[in-house]
């Protein structure tokens, strides 16, 4: 029993030491360090701008790429200064959070359709073809419906193998959101989500898993995050948008998708955009934080550092870096909305950012 008690004492002492160490670090001010966790999709971009920010201001940001779900959980448990997610929190999820949470969009990405067909360099897919392929109604590449949509292209007599994500993912969320918008059958039978009950196909883990499986399998088709596909120069299909145009996914055509009217809280899916030059399977990724920053004994310095970083994060300097790592920057109107939201964030009821 004595041994057990002394063990507990050691644990308590140890954690007490840790606490005081953390507080000391916070009060220094100049070397505030922020902790964040969440989506893996924007990870390369975030890492790049964190480095720039540390160089410019001395504020270090530590980011754990543990997935959007993990980011939401971490913010809920109040173990991070902000979280990151590829899918905005729906009303139920917002209600489950211990306090009011705001969304700050940081950049845009898209979901591209990759394929492996020997000798085929251009593939055009309409929304009805996407529905038929992914619902398993067309099973071979030389199907008349595919042929008539791709005149001048010799489609081989191969089985269509659909490769989807086996892990829960924001990429799947954007993809299925688009499919639900263009196909009633998809909406009623499959639906929207980070993971789904797939009608056909097989799963592979992560963008590298899906891309690897497609490149190793003749006749494969699947969906991949644009940042990964662009970086790896993966061949992608042109997808028909709601204006009837076949659009190649690119940094420009992705950014166009968000040029329409978006709500003040920025919680919106911009898939199936109405703009004639927009790539239709595009979307935002968000950072989430508490609107009232005074919680759990957080210092004002820490709260200020969090909001100042995010304000810098959506401004021109950081946005200009996006294309370098294959992400699409936010349109100006969206940046203004994000800045307005950041100005509503408070510490003890008082706005942290003035102006």
């Amino acid at each position, binding site marked *: 029993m004595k041994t057990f008690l002394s063990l507990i004492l050691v644990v308590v002492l140890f954690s007490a030491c840790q606490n005081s160490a953390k507080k000391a670090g916070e009060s220094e001010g100049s070397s505030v360090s922020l902790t964040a966790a969440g989506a893996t999709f924007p990870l390369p971009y975030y890492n790049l701008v964190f480095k720039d920010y540390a160089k410019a201001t001395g504020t270090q940001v530590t980011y754990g790429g543990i997935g959007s779900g993990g980011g939401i959980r971490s913010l809920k448990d109040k173990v991070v200064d902000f979280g990151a997610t590829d899918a905005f929190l729906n009303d139920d999820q917002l209600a489950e959070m211990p306090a009011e949470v705001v969304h700050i969009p940081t950049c845009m990405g898209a979901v591209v359709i990759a394929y492996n067909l020997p000798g085929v360099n251009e593939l055009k897919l309409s929304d009805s073809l996407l529905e038929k392929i992914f619902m398993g109604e067309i099973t071979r590449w030389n199907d008349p419906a595919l042929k008539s949509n791709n005149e001048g292209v010799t489609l081989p007599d191969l089985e269509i193998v659909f490769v989807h994500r*086996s892990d829960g993912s*924001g990429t799947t969320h954007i993809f299925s959101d688009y499919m639900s918008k263009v196909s009633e059958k998809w909406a009623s039978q499959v*639906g*929207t989500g980070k*993971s789904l009950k797939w009608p056909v196909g097989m799963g592979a883990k992560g963008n590298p898993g899906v891309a690897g499986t497609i490149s190793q399998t003749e006749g494969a088709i699947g969906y991949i995050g644009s940042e990964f596909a662009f970086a790896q120069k993966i061949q992608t299909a042109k997808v028909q948008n709601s204006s009837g145009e076949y659009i190649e996914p690119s940094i420009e055509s992705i950014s166009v998708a968000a040029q329409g009217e978006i709500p003040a809280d920025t919680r919106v899916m911009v898939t199936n955009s109405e703009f004639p030059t927009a790539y239709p399977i595009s979307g935002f990724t968000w950072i989430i934080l508490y609107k009232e920053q005074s919680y759990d004994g957080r210092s004002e310095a820490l709260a200020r550092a969090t909001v100042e970083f995010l304000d810098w994060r959506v401004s021109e300097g950081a946005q200009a870096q996006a294309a370098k790592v294959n992400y699409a920057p936010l349109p100006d109107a969206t940046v203004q909305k994000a800045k307005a939201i950041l100005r509503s964030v408070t510490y003890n009821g008082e706005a942290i950012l003035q102006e």
Partner: protein
Amino acid sequence: MNSDKVTKGVLFSVSILILLLAAGMLYSLVGGSVPSFKAFGWQFIISGEWDPTYGREKYGALPFIVGTLITSFAALLISLPLSFSTSLFLGEYFRGTRVARILGILVDLLAGIPSIVYGLWGFYVLRPLMIDLGFGGQGFGIFTASLILAIMIIPYATSLSNEIISMVPNDLKEAAYSLGATRLEVITTVTIPAARSGIVAGYILSFGRALGETMAVTMLIGNTNQVPGSLFDTGNTMASVIANQFGEADGLKLSSLIAIGLLLFLMTGVINAIGKLIIKKMN
């Protein structure tokens, strides 16, 4: 205080700590899986429906339970002749020779290869081979996953059986030889009966390893959340679905994944208990 008492105290507290760890794990698994069992009851274990779509969520673990049991049993069956003959080779026929030493090191080396390496090898080498041999669709599926599992568990069964077989007393074997028994007769009537409980323990250990293997299986099984219709269908296992889905799961889905973890925990426990029972019966 004498040193004996100190040693006893240290050993006692360390074993209590391990007991607490196991109990804590079980406690958090049970606690986390309550919402799922409340929502689905027995249906959770016997239903093959896995629909994570928000608003019509329904989770049944049957596809994963079936996938786990089939791949692990198939892996055990495939590895049995290989590892058993290797352990006889090492522990009996070529015991103490240089060939046996080198082979023994190589077998142990197999155990040290990380499972992601097995997975990549399976993906880039084994899978194309399966396609060339004409086994089902794209080379992904239960059978390919079982093959990679079989290779992964060979060292566990081999090493343990080999140790036990070489520990069979020489007096026993010499007695049999002096009665005119051939080498094969000595092996079947003396060595194997004397070593069988150890051999069985080795296979139980490797079966447990197969049950929990995640990475290599995920890369080769195809990850479809349905009860497989044949050995060449794609499927999924319990460990693989947890590894794949946990990061983005919340609410009922998170609870269902934890419940699958609990079932896997219990399954491993039951199989170990059955193994112990078999060993006890044999002695």
